[in-house]
């Protein structure tokens, strides 16, 4: 395998090549930059910050002793809201222009300990607020499958980077679907773990009780290796789930005997016909692999949407209060401190961020707290119970990620509500704290990626990975126990 083709390898195979000395970490890490990035990055704009020296230093750090490291030499793209010592962390906001975190997020430390090399910070919707990666202060990311369309958001840069081959793995964050939806739009796998399984220490908080670090990959086996390296309790995060993370080593064990819920009522209306075809295809693959379909009904996501937007914006308005130009970040104006804070925030935050801060502040406001925030938190309990009831009848749920294939840039920007509605199917998992995985199921007739979402109860990651494996497209049939070293079908540039 020539160094030029290293970027095509799954992360596991690449790590093995580095460990066995067949290639150097520097070659492994540079491959995606030389081939795919040269062809794609200028148009796709997945990357917010990159530094060849940081990359080389990261590779050198691994070169010394790659043995025993599950991700030795593997390049990883990290969303710009995760703190990294060697690259800026700006959340793609003017307010944090030039900010360098003085510490690595826990998940980033664990990546490095596993031998991976952080090669870029990816573009995102500012402060993770958005579903299209059109609201970055650095400009939008475009979908490699169709440059006129969005890659999804808010982790669109990470999804796109994995899709076009800059790296086989990427980290994102998922608060209402921000990993699963861009994964679906970009034709890659996207996993949001059970709440508390991925440390949030070093993830710039959007909505504390909903945020989770998520993973992008092109191969289920890679998701498993990355999850095993990163998941688990962190003494610095009091919301960590205690006890070891579930063992995902059996990701290729198949779905024989598993039951999946089929809530067809959810897509009777309002979901694109071709997306539904993708669901049927996924279901068929699962059944062929030995899983059993259990038709059931799930409540529509309407209540979840309302609860989500109140809880998420309330927590966000609080978490973003710290950004005031006093201790770090951009500072605007002087005169008096109050004006300095107000001007810094008003000039530094984009429109969508300000809108959500206002909504959240209002929801928490004296006089409105009971009606909005508290009611939303109660509705959230109900959403969780609805999911628990479903899981009493099945091992996991199969359903849509987004109601449509990737939409066009600019299409939903003018109507915030329309943008929020596209999260309808994903935010339930954040409200309930349960894991969710987006798995690609081929493309529409127009060649756009489509996907299915797998949802499971707490700590069901092993089951979700097994199910995703069964659905994995690209000539994959339900074959057990084998890794694949050939790439999935790549989009060709038009």
């Amino acid at each position: 395998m020539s160094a030029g083709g290293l970027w095509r390898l799954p992360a596991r195979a690449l790590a093995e090549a580095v460990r066995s000395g067949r290639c150097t970490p520097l070659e492994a890490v540079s491959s995606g930059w030389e081939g795919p990035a040269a062809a794609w990055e200028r148009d796709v704009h997945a990357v917010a910050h990159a530094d060849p020296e940081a990359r080389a230093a990261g590779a050198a750090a691994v070169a010394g002793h790659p043995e025993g490291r599950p991700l030795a030499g593997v390049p990883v793209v990290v969303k710009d809201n995760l703190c990294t010592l060697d690259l800026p962390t700006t959340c793609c906001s003017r307010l944090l222009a030039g900010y360098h975190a003085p510490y690595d997020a826990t998940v980033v430390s664990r990546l490095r300990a596993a031998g991976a090399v952080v090669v870029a910070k990816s573009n995102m919707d500012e402060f993770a607020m958005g579903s299209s990666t059109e609201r970055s202060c650095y400009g939008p990311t475009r979908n490699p499958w169709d440059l006129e369309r969005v890659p999804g958001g808010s982790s669109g840069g990470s999804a796109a980077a994995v899709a076009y081959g800059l790296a086989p793995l990427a980290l994102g964050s998922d608060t209402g679907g921000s990993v699963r939806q861009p994964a679906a739009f970009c034709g890659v796998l996207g996993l949001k773990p059970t709440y508390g399984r991925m440390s949030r220490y070093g993830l710039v908080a959007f909505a504390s009780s909903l945020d989770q670090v998520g993973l992008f990959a092109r191969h289920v086996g890679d998701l498993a290796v990355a999850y095993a390296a990163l998941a688990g309790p962190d003494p610095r995060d009091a919301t960590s789930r205690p006890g070891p993370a579930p063992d995902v080593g059996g990701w290729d064990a198949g779905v024989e005997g598993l039951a999946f819920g089929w809530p067809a009522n959810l897509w009777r209306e309002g979901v694109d016909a071709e997306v539904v075809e993708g669901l049927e295809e996924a279901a068929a693959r699962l059944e062929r692999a030995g899983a059993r379909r259990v038709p059931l009904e799930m409540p529509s996501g309407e209540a979840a949407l309302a609860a989500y937007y109140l809880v998420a914006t309330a927590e966000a308005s609080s978490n973003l209060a710290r950004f005031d130009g006093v201790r770090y970040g951009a500072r605007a104006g002087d005169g008096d401190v109050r004006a300095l804070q107000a001007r810094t925030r008003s000039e530094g935050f984009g429109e969508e961020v300000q809108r959500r801060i206002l909504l959240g502040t209002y929801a928490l406001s004296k006089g409105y707290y009971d009606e909005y925030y508290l009611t939303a938190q109660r509705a959230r309990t109900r959403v969780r119970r609805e999911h628990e009831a479903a899981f009493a009848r099945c091992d996991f749920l199969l359903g849509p990620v987004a109601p449509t294939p990737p939409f066009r840039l600019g299409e939903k920007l003018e109507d915030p509500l329309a943008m929020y509605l596209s999260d309808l199917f994903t935010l339930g998992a954040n409200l309930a704290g349960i894991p969710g995985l987006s798995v690609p199921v081929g493309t529409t007739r127009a060649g756009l990626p489509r996907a299915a979402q797998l949802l499971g109860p707490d700590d069901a990651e092993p089951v979700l990975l097994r199910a995703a494996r069964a659905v994995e497209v690209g000539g994959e049939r339900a074959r057990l126990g084998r890794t694949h070293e050939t790439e999935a079908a790549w989009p060709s540039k038009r």
Partner: protein
Amino acid sequence: MALEAVIGLECHVQLRTRTKMFCGCRAAFGDEPNTAVCPVCLGLPGSLPRPNGAAVEAALRLGLALGCEVPAVSVFARKHYFYPDMPKNYQITQYDRPLCVGGALPAEVGGEERDFELARLHLEEDTGKSFHPERRGDRPVSRLDYNRAGVPLVEIVTKPVFRDPAECAAFLAALRRLVRWLGVSDGDMEKGQLRCDANVSLRPGGATALGVKTELKNLNTIHGVERGLRAEIGRQRALLEEGGEVEPATLLYDAGRGRLAVMRTKEEIHDYRYFPEPDLPALATGAAALERLRAALPELPWARAARLCAVHGLAAEDARVLCEQRELADYYEACAAGADPRTASHWVRTAVLAALRERGWTLEALAGRLAPARLAGLVARVAAGTLPGPLAKRAFAWMLEEPGGVDEVLARHGARVLDDLAALRALAREVLDEHAEVAAGVLAGRGRAVDFLLGQVVKRSGGQAAPGPARAALEAELARRAGRGGA
């Protein structure tokens, strides 16, 4: 119109833990600004809080000592407001589910033991400090130091049970004593380790509804609290007696000038947008752990004082003095184990405390020089009357500097005690001759004057006469004169 004042206090106690409330930075630090900070207490993006178990324990001990009820679960909450010394622009505190509720603090006011009821006690984090330009010509910047940001605080809110500023002063003194007694805080108001804000209103005597209240801040000493409250009560009274109305406001008391200044009027009620802290799970206090803490509490100061009165026969006021500080009470009891308690009490309250004041020592330092058991030896001699007062005082001073028991020390300095009866009787005769009228008075029934005569005997002996034998000698001589009919 008889108006009565109604006062409630809100106190903050800075806990003496090694690290801050939500991060591992040192809680006690030197003067260099921003040297005890980390991503958490600076509120850097991505940081998360982790509660300090020792702070929780200290707060619980304080709550238990105050007789509070401890709910099984309490919840941290965010309190939002923008202020440059608060890194996250919200404070992690507790709102509607605090660590402890109810309770009361006993305090002595004007000789009487009172119980002041509390509303609640909870944990929160302290803010950083800001320094503003003071003089003309100073750079026009305010400086921010976050060393103190995140230090654990316990907030104690009383019910509006105070009717007089003297009661507030007594409460604070008692609270200061208690936090030091338990070792949870040094309680030094001037260092900001114990802070007090007050809410005060007036109402017609006998009314039940509360009047409009104002808030008094910046009360930096117990004295300042009392004076500030008197000033504000005076101000409100004057206003109401003129037929005016009190407006809600926050006032600062400038103790130096004895003046109140309005900080801001409360036209806008603050909207802190409290909600439960999503980064922290609820704090569960197990019943077993709570019992363990309760059982391990030391005898509380008021209980100890009561015991000393009951068992050692001390006067209430004396017991209070000894129980002002736990180490002092310990010292006293160790001494009283080896000598008459009341005499020991006298010596600890006078000689020991005086030595601490004059020499600037800590009690620990003094105890290192003069262990209570050694002092007991001295006290026992005094109580037995075999050591005259002046000589005892000199012996005490020597024993602070030298080793050895009282006899050894006296011998080392060549100090003698005169207890030979014949010699004492000779001295007694001299004194009775010199003070014949007093002697006559004693014989006529004014028995108290014997003490004066005894003092004279001791004086005449150059301070060497042992009081017990000297008194016996004096009484024998008096009896002889009485028998002879006063010649």
